[in-house]
């Protein structure tokens, strides 16, 4: 059987969730109309859409800083994840030293730490970058560490028999072999990145979707809070899908293997 073409595959993947979402929205709309609930408590989806559109400039003005924070935070997280993973791969001592610390970093209650970060670092970029890096570097570092370590012993032996240095082995075998796992880890990380940014902004920021939601909630504009939530979800899904595009460019052979 011929593999489905791009357009057909998108349709096949996209239609079921779309149907489900539309059905859910219809039920929500119906429930709001039928029970005549106040919009401050539960606005209808149509109202969320209309008010979101009406406030589009303000929402957009707050989306841009969130995106910036997300990009910087995730870049720091990638740098941190790669650095730690490579260091650990080359040094068994560092592996033993860092592994418990990595795990411990994930037990920090971010909800309690985030306000402290604001106290320490102010309302600027830094505390947000720290929060995003803290919630996203772990899956990336662990994915890479395990990816490097999953290199077959026999492959290492083969490279050694060729006279390869440890760096050669890393460059030619361990690194490319770990990339599929890295992209899996990247997808996990990136879904946390936008939420992490929103969370950090919620605690305190000059601009951004997080602080926007907080302010709208305080003035009982539930509809605008939800409109911002929709924007957040769209951002996350877009970034998530983007990882597949990058993956195809960086490790085309992996897609071939899975396809064939």
């Amino acid at each position, binding site marked *: 059987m011929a593999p489905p073409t791009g357009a057909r595959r998108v349709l096949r993947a996209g239609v079921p969730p779309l149907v489900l979402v539309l059905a859910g929205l219809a039920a929500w709309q119906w429930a709001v109309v039928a029970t005549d609930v106040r919009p401050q408590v539960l606005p209808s989806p149509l109202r969320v859409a209309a008010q979101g559109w009406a406030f589009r400039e303000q929402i957009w003005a707050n989306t841009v800083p969130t995106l910036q924070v997300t990009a910087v935070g995730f870049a720091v997280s990638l740098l941190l994840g790669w650095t730690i993973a490579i260091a650990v791969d080359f040094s068994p001592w560092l592996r033993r030293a860092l592994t418990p610390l990595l795990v411990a970093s994930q037990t920090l209650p971010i909800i309690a730490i985030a306000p402290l970060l604001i106290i320490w670092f102010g309302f600027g970029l830094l505390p947000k970058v720290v929060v995003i890096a803290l919630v996203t570097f772990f899956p990336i570092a662990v994915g890479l560490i395990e990816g490097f370590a999953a290199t077959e012993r026999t492959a290492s*032996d083969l*490279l050694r028999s060729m006279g390869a240095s440890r760096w050669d082995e890393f460059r030619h075998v361990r690194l490319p072999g770990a990339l599929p796992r890295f992209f899996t880890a990247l997808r996990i990380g990136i879904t946390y990145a936008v939420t992490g940014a929103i969370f950090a902004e919620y605690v305190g920021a000059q601009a951004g979707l997080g602080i926007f939601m907080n302010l709208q909630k305080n003035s009982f504009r539930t509809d605008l809070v939800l409109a911002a939530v929709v924007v957040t979800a769209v951002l996350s899904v877009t970034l998530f899908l983007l990882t597949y595009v990058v993956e195809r460019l960086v490790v085309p052979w992996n897609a071939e293997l899975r396809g064939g």
Partner: protein
Amino acid sequence: MAETKLILDGLCKAFDGLDVLAGIDLDVAPGEFVSVIGPSGCGKSTLFNIVAGLQRPDAGRVLVDGEDATGRTDPFAYMPQQDLLFPWRTVLDNTALGLEVGGLRRRDARARARALFAPFGLAGFEDARPHQLSGGMRQRAALLRTVVLERPVLLLDEPFGALDSLTRTDMQTWLDGVRARFDWTVLLITHDVREAVYLSDRVVVLGPRPARVRREVPIGLPRPRVLDMITDPAFAAAERELLAALRRPD
């Protein structure tokens, strides 16, 4: 003394107090094809890893052309059981990997590997990915990657173990032919007695752990080997002798 390419001199190895190799002695002449057979788990792979310089022996030496090569990898081209062709490299880049790692410029490495594609029956597959090759072609590519290093001794660890029997027979005939052209000195590990007889000038039988050389059987069949020889009485006699040596209790 006759000219020797490779000498294994009293190789011993133990793991956690368990003796695996108890003094392996073996001489291999230049251009000779020697197979090592033995019961599973007898330490054949350990022996190979030591010869290949991947592990150190507890005692004993490996000599190549009369010089101590114990723990050195550079006199040996090593082909493991799995083909280990990497999916992120084309077939050509896979076969050139060893030369590249050895410091050759990528272009020169590729040119040298490319020259062997025709004799190895891989012409036209230079830019293919490994998963596009058949099992037999993958093994030939792995062997190409090994021999292109042009090292004094080839170490082949059950190279055809993963192939179906028809492909395996084809590959054995092919290997015998290509070997005659290139005049390699080969040490082959196998658990297939028929393969050992078919390909070798001499077959060495290891006993169960701790392994010693239990018997050496010269194979007097003419070269090139052809499939009909399997029914030759000399072939059957060699096979019988090896099986008897393998089965003999200590």
